[in-house]
């Protein structure tokens, strides 16, 4: 069972590295969105810092929604999803491997780039730290919730639009707690409470989302 989990993970990572240029797209998008904000609000450093947490998080939400689009698409097109259902391992576990690989490929680089974005917006070291921690806890939730929605919408005519329509409202709690945490850090206040909330959401998502995704794949492939 473990070997199948690791095998799926390895396969997905390998496939992703073969398409390196595609990998970079969501990241470039992330940076471009962040650079748009100062142009929209003026290069007033104080104002930008005030808005920075929200800006970076909204950019992260949009970028992760974009990157999710490809999560199951190739598997859907070449029929690998059928193989997944027929595999001897529980489908939820295999799905978890796919989600983990998606997070490793998209989440981790996003966190690294967000440090850069923090420098771009001249945030303090504490704020950048808080930002990284919230992204570290929050982006797996985005991948987990996204997996359900992608499994439901993959292969439909307007899948991309549907995906963001369904997904963005579900992201609301993560956005709220993360942005408040970063804002607290910027103001020099403690933000452990928010991190606990985020961690709670992550645990809940980690237990339920793979099962829901597996159910969604079964519905789509039946």
């Amino acid at each position, binding site marked *: 069972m473990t070997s199948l989990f690791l095998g799926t993970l390895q396969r997905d990572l390998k496939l992703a590295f073969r398409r390196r240029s595609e990998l970079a797209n969501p990241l470039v998008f992330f940076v471009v969105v962040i650079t748009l904000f100062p142009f929209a609000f003026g290069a007033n450093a104080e104002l930008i810092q005030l808005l920075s947490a929200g800006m970076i998080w909204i950019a992260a939400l949009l970028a992760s929604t974009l990157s999710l689009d490809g999560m199951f698409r190739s598997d859907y097109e070449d029929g690998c999803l059928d193989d997944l259902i027929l595999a001897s391992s529980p489908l939820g576990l295999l799905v978890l491997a796919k989600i983990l690989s998606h997070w490793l490929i998209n989440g981790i680089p996003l966190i690294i780039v967000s440090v850069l974005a923090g420098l771009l917006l001249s945030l303090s070291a504490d704020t950048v730290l808080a930002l990284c921690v919230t992204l570290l806890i929050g982006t797996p939730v985005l991948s987990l919730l996204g997996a359900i929605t992608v499994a439901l919408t993959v292969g439909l005519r*307007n899948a991309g639009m549907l995906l963001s329509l369904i997904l963005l409202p*579900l992201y*609301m*709690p993560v956005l709220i707690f993360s942005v408040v945490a970063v804002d607290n850090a910027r103001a020099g206040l403690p933000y452990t409470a928010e991190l606990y909330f985020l961690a709670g959401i992550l645990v809940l998502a980690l237990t339920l989302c793979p099962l829901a995704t597996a159910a*969604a794949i079964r519905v789509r492939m039946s």
Partner: protein
Amino acid sequence: MYKWIHQFGSPKYFYDVSFRVSFWCGVVCVIFLLAGLYGGLVLAPADYQQGDSFRIIYIHVPSAWMSMFVYMVMAVSGGISLIWRIKVNEVIARSAAPLGASFTFLALATGSLWGKPMWGAWWVWDARLTSELILLFLYLGYMALVSAFEDRRTGARAGAILALVGVVNIPIIHYSVEWWNTLHQGPTVTKFSSPSIHTSMLIPLLLMWIGFMCYFFSVLMIRARAEILEYEANASWVRDLVNQSAKRRSI
């Protein structure tokens, strides 16, 4: 009990019963709504703080209750359809969504119309209104997803999963929005929460609520009936039904 469930799960039986349900629910709905409107608009005294504007609660509060109740109906029915693959439940879940969305819309619109004289603004980022808005987005997402499928059954079952995901998410969303709200605006006493409500104000509210419930079930049956005809277009009972329609009741 089991036999009854089994019977109700048969599309033909459901179709036959739905006429009676929608008719009687419609009758009860009209009676209760008229009584509730009379009680709410005429008999109930004006609120000592809010004047006559409080009369909006007689449609705002039942709409808000219904918006959540309908979502539960959708999710429970969807869950049943996922587990036991009962067609009738698929049909009920997908027929409930537009009704739930319209109740949510009503709760938002009347909340806004109430908020204008009370808060002085059409929209305030009040926790309840914001949650209601997100609920509307969830309904719209569900409807978009279900209608995106060519195959009705796959669409309904995909929607059922989404509705269940939503049920787990709604409390979290509501809690996070409430938490965010107290943080940003201070503990504002919302005009929507009235700790002790006078009996003469409460009774019309309950009457209206029963009226809303009956309305929902009545229209739900009409919608579900139409859907089930489409689902079962090739079944023999539908053919018999249509062939005999000259003799039977005219629709």
